[in-house]
């Protein structure tokens, strides 16, 4: 990138954000609303959350829940998906069930989660686990199934079979697609944690949104929490995007590497 392009890459979004904040401020002033907060009120709200120590604690709680649920989905989903992709018979048996469960919104599982785990961390983690499991499982399964026969044959030609073939050929060949699934799953997990925390627990950013509204209609805190959720979601996505730029997997992301 030329210095000029680099400057533009920072400057243009900054200008757009500034315009948006100005519009927001003007809209609040012109309409004279006393429900929706102004940008300044939200900034004060954020400062208040930081002072009380809630900002860090709630962010940490949400991230820990996502980490646990997503981590569990990853540990189970990747091996299970690889197994299903590797054994066509198993995939044929399991696929109808997977395709049936997959379109069910994780939010529909909330009552089930509460029956199973009560109003607790475990409920939220279970919901995040469910929400992330299917994208990861299906990506791993399709990734393995889609490995060109040529790679498989080449691996066998060099004397590999069983787990050696799996770990040295099939897994690396499927990795870009698995990473794409991991990225989608992380986005969904971050959306679901907010919903789960509104219902199933008493901390976290989702809880902050619902609690601020219920306890005295503090819309400055509601919007502050929303902004936090957005910023952290953005950071999580940037983080996982970094992983897909590693040289050993970049070949699989040709369409994005413009």
């Amino acid at each position, binding site marked *: 990138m030329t210095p000029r392009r680099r400057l533009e890459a920072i400057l243009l979004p900054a200008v757009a954000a500034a315009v948006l904040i100005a519009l927001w401020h003007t809209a609040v002033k012109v309409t004279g609303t006393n429900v929706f907060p102004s940008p300044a009120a939200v900034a004060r709200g954020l400062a208040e959350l930081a002072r009380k120590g809630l900002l860090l604690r709630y962010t940490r709680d949400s991230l820990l829940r996502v980490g646990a649920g997503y981590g569990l989905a990853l540990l189970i989903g990747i091996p299970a998906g690889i197994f299903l992709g590797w054994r066509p018979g198993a995939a044929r048996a399991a696929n109808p069930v997977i395709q049936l469960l997959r379109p069910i919104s994780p939010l529909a599982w909330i009552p089930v989660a509460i029956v199973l785990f009560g109003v607790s961390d475990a409920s939220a983690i279970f919901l995040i686990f469910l929400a992330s499991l299917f994208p990861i499982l299906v990506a791993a399964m399709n990734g393995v199934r889609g490995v060109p026969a040529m790679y498989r044959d080449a691996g066998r030609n060099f004397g590999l079979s069983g787990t050696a073939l799996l770990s040295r050929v099939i897994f690396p060949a499927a990795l870009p697609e698995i990473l794409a699934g991991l990225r989608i799953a992380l986005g969904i997990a971050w959306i679901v944690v907010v919903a789960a925390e509104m219902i199933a627990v008493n901390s976290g950013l989702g809880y902050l949104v619902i609690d601020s509204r219920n306890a005295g209609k503090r819309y400055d805190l509601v919007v502050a929490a929303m902004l936090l959720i957005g910023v952290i979601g953005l950071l999580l996505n940037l983080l996982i995007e970094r992983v897909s730029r590693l040289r*050993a997997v970049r070949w699989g992301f040709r369409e994005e590497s413009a």
Partner: protein
Amino acid sequence: MIPAPEPAPGRTKLEIRGLEMTFRVEHEVRVLEDIDLDVREGEFVCILGPSGCGKSTLLNIVAGFLAPTAGSVKINGEEVRGPDPRRIFVFQERGVFPWLTVEGNIGFGLGRLPRGERERRIAHYVVLVGLQGFEKSYPQELSGGMKQRVEVARALAVDPDVLFLDEPFGALDSITRLVMRGELLRIWRAEQKTILFVTHDIEESVQLADRVVVMTARPARIRRIVPIDMPHPRDLSARRYLELRDGIFEEIGLAHKI
């Protein structure tokens, strides 16, 4: 129509007897019929036929990736029952592993060797195929011709006695293809391998082979075996070269005019 296979001087390496192949997809497709062929050690044999005639199927059977419907393939007097690192199949350039560097690809079949020996061999074959300076490059950073060299080097590194090449230069531009033919001949002379080379390119077969096995359209049979009695390097405007080439053109029933 079908003359007996040429009695080949030298030790017989590969022996194909009464080979037949029928695929059952929706209806039966007879692909290979009555294939008898002997290839002697160190010989360079081209299998020439129109696209889709079944010559690749023949190569896949000989390499052990497919089981024939009838007949047998013996290498060193031993029935072929599956792929084997002593006989390496070279695909078009897409067979290189995109998740490994040039070094990683060339060393792929050398896992059992001690580290020093492995590195020595990788270095040797990097030089042999002229890829010095690209050891740490990934395939997507290389041109088609370079990828093809990587695949040939990966095959040679495990020191096989037989190489199977399935239209290896088909995807390359015509200049690179000519260069690669020269390289292959140089390597063949240096490494003394038996080579079975499938192509649909008449010129290519006459430039490379000791004998050209001309196949019919599907179901493929051996139409004729043409010995190319010219020493290397071959003069592509020599009268004998043109005679042999035009003989095969006629054999296939193509008027050599456009």
